[in-house]
């Protein structure tokens, strides 16, 4: 059950990143970092935060928003808000 939940959350996260960055799902992996590809610029970051807050129904703190420097980091941060990966 919890495994399924984790899988669902990972899929949701991937979709949120792909939507905000407008790249293929296959390009989303843990090592992908802010400003490492031109698609992940400040506009995309802003849309990404809105997307993540929406999809996982959380309200991120300022420090967490600016700390979200990679996909892996996004998972760590979202875990603090009770979203497991």
């Amino acid at each position: 059950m919890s495994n399924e939940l984790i899988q669902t959350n990972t899929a949701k996260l991937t979709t949120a990143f792909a939507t905000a960055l407008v790249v293929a799902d296959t390009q989303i992996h843990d090592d992908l970092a802010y400003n490492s590809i031109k698609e992940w610029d400040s506009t995309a970051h802003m849309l990404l935060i809105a997307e993540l807050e929406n999809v996982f129904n959380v309200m991120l703190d300022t420090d967490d928003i600016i700390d979200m420097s990679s996909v892996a980091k996004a998972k760590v941060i979202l875990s603090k808000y009770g979203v497991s990966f």
Partner: protein
Amino acid sequence: MSSFANRLEQFGEAIALRLPDHSTISYLQLAKLADQYSATLNKLLPEHSLLALRFSSTLAAVVAYLAALRCGKALLLLAPDLGDSQTLALVERLQIAALIQSSGDIQLTGHQHQVRPDCALLLSTSGSSGSPKSVMLSLENIEANARAICAYLPIEPTDTAITALPLHYSYGLSVLNSHLFKGASVLLTEAPLMSKDFWQQTRDFHISSLQGVPFSYQLYRQLRLERMPRPALRYLTQAGGKLNSSLTDYVQQLASSLQKPVYLMYGQTEATARIAYLAPKFIQQYADCIGVAIPEGELLLRHPVTKALITEDLREGELCYRGPNVMLGYASCADDLTSRTVLTELSTGDLAERLPNGLYRIVGRLSRFLKIQGKRLQLDHLEQQLSALVDPVCCTGNDELLVVAYTQQEPALAEQLQQLLREQLQLHPALYKVLQLDALPALSNGKADYQALLQLAMGSHHAG
């Protein structure tokens, strides 16, 4: 003519520039660095040569900028990441004699074109898109605008500004210039607005003011700037396009919750940067106004067709501006660089009215351009560019969405257009919409009906 760039020495040991590693450059040191660089430029190039600089927010680039101003070389400012092919096209079109990299490295191109002696600086009208149309500014323009800004903004010699906006952009540049004019300091950071480094720096360096185009305020809202303790922050400024109503609400809330003045400003690169500002006391009641002309400047309204002066209140006309910061003229090719035109009055292309209390309000736009994220997009120019790919093509939109429509039924086209918009204009896909239509909406006279197209696109935008 001398400018603040020639007077750096007067502030002696005061700190001019701060770097993210906490090292500092005094005004005396900065003058010395600029003179060393000038000596190199003078050895390589005759006076009144045109140079281009990839203007990153780094010490080497700022030294190159000040050196060019101090030694009488004309300088075109480029986005640091402007693509090679676009850079090369500009070099050829304007016959630029040398390209200066962000590192300060100089590459000679072999061109030897001489620029009119009063032209000190060239700025692109459209930010990073590499449009060949540039604004020619004199030293006097730059000096006058910095002086006016220092007269209405509360800049103190003890202040530290931060490069929240790119320096090749007139608004970003005006922050550097006005602080150097006043003997204050600027933190040169390349950290993006949406990064931990940037916000740490605003705290660690006791940054005294924050600037922003409407898009920056969207970021400030998402970051909940009002909750960030920044005791050194004394005031905020906004320019680079009109705020939409939800951002206006946010800025008003920000002003009252922070209890700090917010200056809404209006300007154009054609006027070096600033034209008008709204005194912070008006922000709750008159946030839809651009305020009054900056010191030494004058706003006028003219009938769009007859150009007759409009003196009555609440009568709509084209907003025009006179002042010592009005550009020399435009340059689209090398020949324009030797023109002798001197512009005394600038037609802004915006429609405005004056309220009985003397404040001006923008009510519409006469010429076809959009300002998306502070970048100006000339729609006719864009149509021309795109017509190489697809013809006919229509461009319209508002400051939040660019709309491109075409009829040709070629499956690969949509993708090609998207890619061009994303890569050349550096627009996020959320900021444009590409539509393939059976027919482009037209007026009875056969001209494109841009209003109808926009409505159509907005309808499908909300639905989609």
